[in-house]
Structures are given as C-alpha cells and as structure tokens.
C-alpha cells in the first residue's frame, strides 16, 4: 500500500514537470504555479517540546511539528471559516446539548488501521476533556460521545454549550489520536507521545534529541496527490543568530514564530531568494498586557490604572521593540483580527503623559516633594524577548510620570508561581493568547472568584459582578448573534474598568526561502498540516 506511488500522482508529477519545463523555457514568462512533488523541506525547530502529542498539549510549539502528523477535525481556512479535515460536516443542536460530526471516509492511520468514530470518541472522552489544557475548558460539560456508526460522532453535553465556541475551537483542540495505540495504557507516559501516530500528510519518522525531528510523506494520505513534499526536517538550532545564518547559507528553508531576530528581518528580506512574511498568523494572535495587582490600594483605583495606560505609548513599543513587524497598538484583549467578535464601541485610550499625571493627582497620589508618587515592583514575563523589552520601556515610561519601578525577573516557572500562585507582584507584563474565541483563554483573565494557582487566569484580585455575569451568560448562550452581542458588552466593561491594560497585539513573522510555495495561506499556517506546501527545484 505504501510502496508504489499512486498512478494518478505519477501522472501529476509528469505533467507538472512538463508544464514547469515549458514555463521556464519561455523567456520572460511567469513560472507556472504548478506544485512540484518531491524535495525535503528543512525548517528551524521552534523548541523541543516535552510532549509531541497535540491532543494532550494543545500549544503552538507542539502543533508546529505534530500538526503535520496528527490532524484535527477541521482547520482554519483562508477566508476565516473552517476547512474540513477529518470531519466533513458538523452541526450543533438548537438547545446546545448535542453536537453532531460526520467523519471522512477511507482514512487510515499511519500504521494501516482504519480511522473510525471510535477514535474520535476515545480522544474526546479520555484525552481532550480530562487531559488537555484547552479541551478541559471547551468540553467541560461533555458527558458522552455516541458513535451510531463508524463515520458519525455525536457529542452530548450536560449543559448548553454554544456550537459557535466548539466550531471556533475545532482547529486547536480536536487532534484525534489512535484508540488502538492508547486504550488501556497510561496515556500521559505512552511511548507514542514522543513518536506520534496520526492520519496526517506526514509520518513521524525520527527524533534525535537536541538535533532534529524528521517527518516523511504519508503515501496513503486521504487527500489524493498530497502532500507534495517528500520529507520535512525540523532542525534544532537554539541560537537565533545561527537561524539567520542558516537561512542565508540555504541550510534551512524556513523559520517561523519570529525565530529570526527582528533586527535581521530587513537584511534577510533584502536578500534575493529570501522573504519575510507577516501573514498566516492571524489565528494565533498574542497581546502584551500590563497586569496590575488589585490588592495594592493604588492599583485597585481605576483612575490609577487609566493613568498607567495613558503614560505608555503603544506605538513606540510597536516601532522600537517590534520594529513594526506584525504588531499594532491594542484596544482590548480581543484583537482586531477577530472579526467575528471585535468591537470598537468602547472607551479608547491615547498616549498622554500630562493627562496621566493629572489623573494621579486627582486620585490622591501627588508627587512627594516633586519626586515620585509611589513605588511598584514590575515582573515582565520571560517568555519573549519583546515582553522583557516592554518591561524595560514601561519602567522608563512610569518613572517619567513619577512612579518608581523596580524590575523583578525570574525564569518561566518562577514567574508563573510568583504571579499566579503567590501574587508576589504589583505590576506584571504578560503575553496572553487569543485563541479564536473569547471563551477559550480570554474571559478567564477577567473572571472573578477563581482559586489561587491557576496560570494565565485572573489572579489580579479583580472581581466585578457585572463582568462575571456577562462571562457566564456568554459561555452558555447558544444563539451566535446574541453571543457576539454579549462579547461586545464584555469588551465595553473591560475598557471602562481597565482591570488589565492591553498594550499591543502581535503576531509573528516567517522568513522563507522563495523556493517554498503556499506559505502563509491560512490564518494558522505555521501550525497547520502543510499538505499543500511545495518546494521548487533549485
């Protein structure tokens, strides 16, 4: 089944080669955009995740490698909708208690076993709901998954779950793993977590720790004629400068997630044969957020928080720290690119240090002897160079309006414990992710009454009944239009209270060799399956 190339593929290769040859031989003509089958794409690995199973660890670092091997039910399409992958149709019931999915026929796992609804039911009940960081939120009320036949899965919920939410979450949380390899084992320590088996266009072939991941073409992939590439190799190159050098020497063809330092982008883009691309990340938008600890009396005052915002110039962060690549000033924690939910009907803030100083005076915190008003400790998250640099800038900006800032830094786990468990901070700079629906990882930043020790949640001591109500209502509102309206209200309250202060929203940059085609052609390109990516011959 895997040995001989499919006759249709051989024909395609032949004709595309002829077409390409014809196109190249015509002087001055544009090279035909016919995909070429074959070639090895070499990519700089983003990180070495501890777990390669995207059904358990739904994170970008894992998706970068594993989404080529393990597929979700649907992926984001270029037009903002969904592209069917393992699921061909889906529909939620009017009462929000069932969600029916029709599955694709004729799909097999990489080891030859057939893909059926039993795999989906197993993945949902044994992995997405109990073990996956995001699945626990979306499938909190999942009761059971019925499988009336091999190609139908019916999700049954104990409380109304908006189908809008499930659809938005499909690309990130519904990676299906093979039941026959996981059932009866300890899923968390299963060996296949380091060598995933899926239904995707590429088979996981090799992992050399500290060196590379190797994926090879799945000859039996359900999408006829794809994938085009023979192999994808993710090379581990931890040094950002060496990634830039590797692009120049041609040792690698692609870097994603802004792996190359922003200061190198202009130089690399200018090189013939390399391009810096900011598209393809809209579905993975991050924000830089200044998060105050409301347990500090000064910071519990909305006027003070507004003053903080007025003292900071987000455009400067965009221009100096992001060098203008893939970043814009933020108006809220739902980004502009989230066209389904974004609303500008809310208070907007500018850069006005004088107004900031006036507000602080008004709030009762004047400058003492013309010097500083009060002192705070600022913890910038160490996750990105940009969050750390923003910390440096914010310190400067706040010192200018009379607030003394001491920066406290820690590595990633230290930061998480300090901010989200110990609440040992006055201000923190964090980088929350918007995952295509506010209910997934955004509203949890505003929801009151949470226990301590929940990372990336509202640990600021903010608890507003109006806000809590809006969040609870929207989480169970089945009518899409009404749900959108509720999230507009959510954005209004967030901008008025400013419990946490959005500064900048940003995505990433891909640097690619021009020989690579179909780059960035969907909003989650870097974390999608690359079945249609192809490499032009040299």
């Amino acid at each position, binding site marked *: 089944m895997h040995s001989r190339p499919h006759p249709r593929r051989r024909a395609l290769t032949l004709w595309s080669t002829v077409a390409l040859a014809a196109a190249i031989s015509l002087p001055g003509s544009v090279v035909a955009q016919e995909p070429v089958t074959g070639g090895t794409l*070499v990519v700089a690995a983003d990180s*070495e*995740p*501890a777990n*390669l199973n995207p059904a358990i*660890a*739904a*994170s*970008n*670092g*894992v998706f970068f490698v594993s989404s080529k091997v393990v597929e979700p039910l649907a992926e984001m399409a270029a037009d903002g909708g969904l592209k069917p992958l393992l699921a061909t149709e889906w529909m939620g019931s009017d009462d929000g208690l069932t969600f029916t999915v029709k599955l694709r026929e004729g799909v097999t796992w990489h080891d030859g076993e057939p893909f059926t609804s039993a795999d989906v039911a197993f993945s949902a009940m044994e992995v997405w709901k*109990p073990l996956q*960081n*995001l699945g*626990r*939120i979306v499938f*909190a009320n999942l009761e059971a998954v019925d499988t009336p036949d091999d190609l139908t899965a019916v999700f049954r919920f104990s409380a109304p779950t908006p189908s809008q939410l499930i659809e938005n979450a499909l690309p990130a949380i519904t990676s299906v793993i093979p039941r026959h390899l996981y059932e009866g084992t300890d899923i*968390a320590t299963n060996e296949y*977590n*380091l060598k995933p088996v899926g239904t995707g266009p590429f088979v996981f072939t090799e992992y*050399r*720790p*500290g*060196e*590379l991941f190797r994926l090879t073409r799945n000859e039996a992939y359900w999408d006829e004629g794809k994938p085009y590439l023979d192999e994808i*190799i993710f*090379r*581990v*190159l*931890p*040094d950002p*400068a*060496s990634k830039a*050098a*590797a692009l*120049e*020497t041609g*040792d690698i063809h692609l870097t994603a997630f802004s792996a190359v330092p922003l200061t190198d982008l202009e130089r690399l883009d200018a090189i013939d044969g390399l391009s810096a691309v900011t598209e393809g990340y809209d579905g993975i938008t991050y924000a830089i957020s200044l998060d105050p600890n409301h347990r500090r009396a000064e910071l519990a005052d909305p006027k003070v928080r507004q003053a903080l915002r007025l003292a900071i110039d987000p455009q400067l962060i965009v221009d100096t720290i992001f060098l203008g690549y893939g970043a814009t000033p933020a108006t809220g924690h739902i980004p502009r690119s989230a066209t389904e939910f974004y609303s500008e009907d809310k208070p907007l803030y500018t850069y006005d240090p004088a107004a900031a100083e006036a507000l602080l005076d008004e709030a009762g915190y004047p400058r003492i002897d013309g010097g500083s008003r009060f002192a705070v400790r600022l913890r910038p998250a160490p*996750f990105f160079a940009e969050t750390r640099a923003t910390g440096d800038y914010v310190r400067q900006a706040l010192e200018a309006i009379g607030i003394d800032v001491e920066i406290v830094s*820690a*590595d*990633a*786990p*230290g*930061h*998480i*414990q*300090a901010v989200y468990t*110990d609440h040992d901070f006055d201000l923190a700079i964090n980088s929350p*992710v918007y995952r295509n629906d506010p209910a*997934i*990882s955004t509203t*949890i930043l505003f929801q009151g009454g*949470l*226990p301590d*020790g*929940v*990372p*990336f*949640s509202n640990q600021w001591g903010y608890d507003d009944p109006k806000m809590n109500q809006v969040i609870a209502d929207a989480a169970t509102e089945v009518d899409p239009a009404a749900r959108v309206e509720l999230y507009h209200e959510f954005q209004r309250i967030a901008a008025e209270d400013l419990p946490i202060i959005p500064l900048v929203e940003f995505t990433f940059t891909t640097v690619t060799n021009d020989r690579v085609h179909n780059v960035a052609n969907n909003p989650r390109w870097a974390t999608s399956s690359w079945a249609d990516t192809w490499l032009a011959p040299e």
Partner: protein
Amino acid sequence: MARGTGSFILRRLVHAVPVILIVAVGVFLLLAAAPGDAVDAYLAQTGSGDTGFAAQLRQQWGLDESLPVRFLMYMESVVTLDLGWSVAVSAPVTEAILVRLPSTILLMTSAILLAAVLGSVLGAVAAMRRGSPLDGTITTIGLALNAMPGFWLGLIFIVVFVVGLGWFPLAGMSTIDGPTDPVGHALDIAWHLALPVITLALTYMALYMRLMRGAMIETRASDWVRAARARGLPSGRIVRGHIARPALLPVVTMLGLQAGAMLGGSVVIETVFAIPGLGSLAYIAVSRRDLPLVAGVVLAGTVLVIVINIVVDLAYARLDPRVADERVRSGPNR
C-alpha cells in the same frame, strides 16, 4: 600491578559514594527552594488551562506530596539509581542522560587533551626560551585566551569561521543525511566538533602552559638533570626524558582538577554551538524545574569528573614510577 589497579579503582569509587550522596541532597534542597515547580514550567510552555488543570498535573507527577515525603521518595530513587521519568523531555531520566552523554564525553575529552597537549608544547617552548620575547608573547597569549569568556570566543569563531569563511558547519553533531560509513561518519562528527573543541581548549590552555613551563624550568635546574648532562647524554634525550616527562606530572594532576570546570564550560559551549550534550540538558532541566533530571545530570557530571580523576591518577602513577606504589595506595588528589 593489575590487581593493585583494580582495588585502587574500587577504593576510589567507594570513597566517592558519600560525595555523591551529599551532592544528591544538595540538589534536592536547591530545587525545593526554587520558585515554581515542574508543573509551572510545563504550563509556561503549553499555555492556559482551566482551574483544575495545574492541580491535576501536580497530582499526576507526585508533586502534591509534602516536602519530607518527596525527599524520601527522591533519596530512594537516587540510591536505587532509578531516577524515574523526566517530564521535561518525556523520557526516562537515565535514557535522556545516556543519549546525550557520549557527545559531552567526546567534546570534553577532546578539549582536555587538546588543551593539555597545546599547553604543554607551548609551555615547553616558553621554558626552553625562558626570558625571551617569545616566552613573554606565548605566556601573554595564553593568559589572554584564558581571560576571554568561552561563549564569547565561540560566538566570534562562528561569525568568522562559519558564517564568514564557511570552513566549519553551523551547528549540531553531524550532517543530516550525512555519511553513514564508520569512517565518513567519524570524520563528519569531527568536523562538527572541531570548532567547539578548539574554543573550549583554547580557553583552558593557559593553565597547562604555565604549569609545564614552571615545572620544566625547575627540573631543568635540578640535580639529576645536571648529572645526566655531566654524563654526556644527548641534549634532546635529556629534554624529553628527564625534563619534560616529570614536568608533565603537575599537568596531569591539573587535568583531574580542571575536569569539573571544563564540564561547566561545556554548558555554554554546547548552548552556543547547539551540541546535544549533558551541558545543554542541564540547562533544559533547570529551566523546566525537572528535579529528577537535574539530579541525574548533576550526578552524572559528578561521576564523570570522578572517573576522569581516577583515570588521571592511574596515568600519574604510570608517568612517575617512583611514586606508583605510594600514589596508588592513596591517590595524589586527596
């Protein structure tokens, strides 16, 4: 000699056991004091979860037990040499370490040998030309190299020799899809390790240079060299056999003492040159707060240093037969 050697090694290993235990306890205390645990590190990577996710992971990974219980579990794992599962790299700790150990051993031993050889040769030259400008130049260059941060020298070398001249490969241990025949593969690895080994060696060379130089100057003036000269032995043979050979003794001693420092140096070198070895694993383990893995790496490093010291002591005994019996009994590095 063989039986003496065997029991010597055994005695040294037994002697090392309390050292290893002290180190193990220290590692536990250190990580227990650290803010943020393995779950925090994992969540930093994977991102959000719901309210119960962190608690569930802690329970899964045995991190919700009290401190004394965790200490006992930990010491048991150390004593039985079963360090368990590493959540940082999703593999058994022992396996994770053994996979990466050869790279570091290769890197370190090559660097140590290169540093010792280069240092001894240059030190000998300096000693023979003592007081001349050549002597001063050699010594200063050695000191200057020693004063440079290893990672800085590595970065400069990469810019000049890899990106600029393209003489060496960019990173890693071997070329992807490179030669698979033993000779080709070995040469490929050597080509990849050349620059990191040279960088590491150059920064530690100075010490051996000074030792060799100093020792040679001293022995040169000693009685028995004068006696040999008086007997009319050829100058070359005197230098090699009577001056250089005993002068190597302090160099060899230093090899053992330097092993720990060079293993530390390999952490940054491995990071700069993307070598998948023990040093970079140490960095991953610490930043992901993976106690079993940190313990494993520290213990493996300690054992490596102890082994190198034993080898060095044996070499020392071979070099200086006068003290072979006595040294074998008590070891020079006590």
